[in-house]
């Protein structure tokens, strides 16, 4: 390999002491200012011609003041956002074992399909006769979801998982009111291990939350549920597989007890990805379950959205599904935006249009690619990978509910870190230095110092072996008392540990122009 002058370099010539750089940059690690610090209000990266003179019809409400928006030319903008992206960790960067979040591979075929103009460039309110293919996608996706879950129908429109929970609970509330029990049934049972969205959702629409206490084996027991049931209970919100990484082994009995008491079974489907093709939630007795298309069916998480949370419904709840929905009339699909007859009792509308079409296309592409055999294999591999990690770490890490098979994620606690001076948080930050995204930590709340690891089916055995070796090395280091490796971590990330307390105490939530000479005055 020759350099520009034709002179070969050798590693031995390199000095060992790095000089602080003038720019503050470190080669590929670039410092990037805010757009407000580099942009200008006159600069634009979009060429537009000023319209010909005309008389405005704004009723004298024209903006007079400046907005305060900087612009960047196209090359400047490209560089700004590329540099920002390089400070981010994604699935494509490395193993992303964030438990309960299912960071599996995002196939680019799905992106390409979502960008077909026939899907991306159609308006939700253009004539139905011009969007037959879009309705076909929604209908086909619905058919897959209903088949995979053995339910009756699906409400596609919820915009994310929590929005799906809201939709499902609204359907339950509507069903209860239709039976004339709206005044009396106002309690929802929620296990302590549930996602925070569950109690928040129930409370949002006026239910009182009655916690189901955690047991020391990680399962919800039918006896505990029965004790809490009564004529005031509207529903249970149960996550299955649960947030401890276990399949609820009494779920069928729990469903029966709930139904016998005249209540409904809402299942949080965040972890459906562990059992696709292995078990159908409808066979377990659920009445409603949201499905995070961005988890199970691999639509990209995008740094926090957009998600998509369709809700499958049992026959008991199907009549209450919100608008809009799709029906077939004489074999032709049509969109129902208002209830037409008495058999339909939609509880209302969740969002302005038809939900996350862009996500439907991606999820359906995933389903067609995998097929029934591939989806089943994906679930099995996800569960296999999690158990492989469990088995490979069980001698060093402690498990709160004993060493037993898990589903797609394995839960450890921090008992094994006792007296090491290393916390779950420190351990997670040290994983960053090793090139890994940390696992989910301190969730579920029922486990002390929880570490929830979900490798997904996207990891190869070689990748898992290196991950396991790295975690074992970190664990040995912690047990040997090498606390500095943890307490100061991360050392090698774009930022060191950030002061979250300061951010919350004196919130700075937007950029403001520095006062001139402010520094000189200090």
């Amino acid at each position, binding site marked *: 390999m020759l350099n520009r002058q034709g002179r070969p370099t050798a590693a031995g010539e390199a000095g060992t002491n790095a000089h602080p750089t003038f720019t503050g940059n470190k080669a590929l690690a670039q410092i990037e200012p805010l757009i407000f610090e580099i942009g200008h209000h006159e600069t634009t990266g979009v060429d537009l011609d000023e319209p010909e003179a005309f008389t405005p019809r704004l009723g004298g409400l024209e903006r007079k003041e400046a907005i305060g928006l900087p*612009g960047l030319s196209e090359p400047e903008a490209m560089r700004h956002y590329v540099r920002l992206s390089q400070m*981010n960790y994604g699935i494509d960067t490395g193993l992303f074992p964030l438990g309960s979040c299912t960071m599996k591979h995002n196939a680019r075929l799905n*992106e390409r399909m979502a960008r077909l103009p026939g899907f991306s460039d159609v308006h939700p309110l253009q004539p139905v006769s011009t969007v037959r293919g879009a309705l076909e996608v929604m209908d086909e996706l619905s058919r897959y979801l209903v088949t995979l879950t053995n339910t009756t129908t699906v409400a596609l429109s919820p915009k994310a998982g929590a929005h799906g929970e809201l939709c499902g609970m609204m359907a339950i509330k509507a069903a209860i009111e239709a039976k004339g029990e709206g005044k009396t049934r106002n309690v929802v049972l929620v296990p302590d291990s549930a996602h925070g969205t569950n109690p928040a959702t129930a409370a949002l629409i006026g239910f009182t939350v009655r916690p189901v206490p955690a047991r020391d084996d990680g399962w919800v027991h039918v006896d505990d549920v029965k004790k809490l049931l009564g004529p005031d209970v509207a529903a249970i919100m149960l996550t299955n597989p649960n947030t401890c990484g276990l399949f609820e082994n009494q779920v*069928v009995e729990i469903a029966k007890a709930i139904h016998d008491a005249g209540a409904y079974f809402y299942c949080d489907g965040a972890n459906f990805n562990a059992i696709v093709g292995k078990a159908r939630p409808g066979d377990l007795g659920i009445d409603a379950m949201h499905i995070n298309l961005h988890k199970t069916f691999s639509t990209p998480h995008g*740094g926090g959205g957009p998600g998509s949370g369709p809700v499958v419904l049992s026959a008991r709840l199907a009549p209450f599904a919100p608008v809009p929905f799709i029906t077939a009339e004489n074999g032709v699909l049509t969109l129902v935006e208002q209830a037409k007859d008495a058999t339909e009792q939609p509880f209302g509308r969740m969002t302005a249009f038809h939900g996350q079409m862009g996500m439907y296309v991606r999820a359906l592409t995933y389903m*067609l690619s995998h097929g029934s055999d591939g989806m089943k294999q994906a679930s099995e591999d996800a569960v296999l990978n999690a158990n492989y990690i469990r088995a490979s770490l069980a001698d060093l890490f402690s498990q709160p509910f004993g060493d037993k098979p898990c589903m797609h994620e394995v839960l450890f606690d921090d008992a094994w870190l006792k007296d090491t001076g290393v916390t779950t948080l420190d351990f997670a930050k040290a994983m960053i230095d090793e090139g890994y995204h940390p696992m989910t930590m301190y969730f579920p709340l029922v486990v002390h110092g929880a570490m929830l690891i979900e490798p997904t089916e996207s990891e190869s*055995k070689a*990748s898992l072996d290196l991950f396991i070796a790295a975690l074992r090395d970190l664990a040995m280091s912690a047990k040997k008392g090498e606390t500095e490796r943890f307490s100061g971590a991360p050392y090698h990330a774009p930022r060191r540990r950030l002061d979250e307390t300061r951010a919350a105490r004196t919130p700075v939530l937007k950029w403001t122009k520095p006062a001139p000479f402010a520094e000189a005055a200090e």
Partner: protein
Amino acid sequence: MRYLPLTDTDRGEMLARIGVNTVDDLFADIPSNVLLKAPLDLPRRKGELEVERIMSRMAAKNVPASSVPFFVGAGAYKHHVPATVDHLIQRSEFLTSYTPYQPEIAQGTLQYLFEFQTQVAALTGMDVANASMYDGSTGTGEAVLMAHRVTKRRKAVLSGGLHPHYVDVVQTLSKMASDDVVALAPDVSATEDLLASIDDSVSCVVVQTPDVFGNVRDLKAIADKAHQHGALLIAVFTEVMSLGLLQSPGSMGADIVVGEGQSIGNALNFGGPYVGLFATQSKYVRQMPGRLCGETADADGNRGFVLTLSTREQHIRRDKATSNICTNSGLCCLAFTIHMTLLGEAGLKRLARINHANAVKLADQLAGVKGVEVLNQTFFNEFTVMLAKPAAEVVERLAEKGVLAGVPVSRLLPGAGLDRLLLVASTEVNTDDDRAAFVAALKEVL
């Protein structure tokens, strides 16, 4: 299977390490009568080429906005998005990252959220904006709930100019939460007496401008009356582009500003994903729903950003949270902020003027067609026309002639007796030829 790296040899070795014989031993907690023995009755796996064929066949049955003269709006708008935007949002590090819970390796997401919040606050004329909501309609529902928390009252007044689907979303949420809603009758010409509905029992007044019929509304008097009675003014927009040309809701006295940001950076996508914008005054920030990004410093003293004020949120507060919301519209909000950065102040204002100019041109041309009456005195890039025939029928006939003309009001408000009204939008994408085609086709149909 191209997405699954494990080989059968791997699987065998891994099962041995785990100490079980078959993978089904790991599923032993599933009752055996429920455990599926064979794959479900769905097609088997397919290669890329075959999947592309199937999806493309369905896509081809739709009429894309770019392929015809296109004037459909009513809450979602066809705009041109620069190529740079779509390239950048597909960067792996943005596309495949999670909510930035580990800020040391998520500064890219956090910095653009901070920039986005600053842009939205500036546009709306408010102190503070959150990191986005699902869309404008769900954001409006959240704004009403927030107003109830702030005022400790539970009655919302909705203007008759609010998008009917937004009304439905608010009413659904309010009915479920046993809150009161007073929804005024559809108000085509912005003549409703909102002031008369405001009294000491009202928590908030929700007013859209430009309203669903296109009218530009002055909010000042409504803000004053609301504040006299201890109520909040929630200003809603469905076309964010209008803020480039119109006075900001904040400058007119709004307490919460919420709306749809799809027009900047985001495709039509048949209704989603979109991006809800949400802004308010500093004093209400702790009652705000959704994610917030804030500035701080790291252990070396370098500036950095984190998610903050999370004690409002469900993962901490559970049933006492300000909202059950868990995500924002990450990638759509990235698309918004990139497009807005490319436009800048100068570009946004010019683009808004082009939109308005095109709509004025179209309104004047349509007004010259027999059987068409333009109802608006004021508008931005969308207005209402009264036709000599039912609008739904006219729209279908025009679609057959290859013109997508707009949204019949009867589709949004069936049974309201507004069957001859049509909402027509015009943006920078429309050319003189588009307008000529619309006018010619309309003359034939009417």
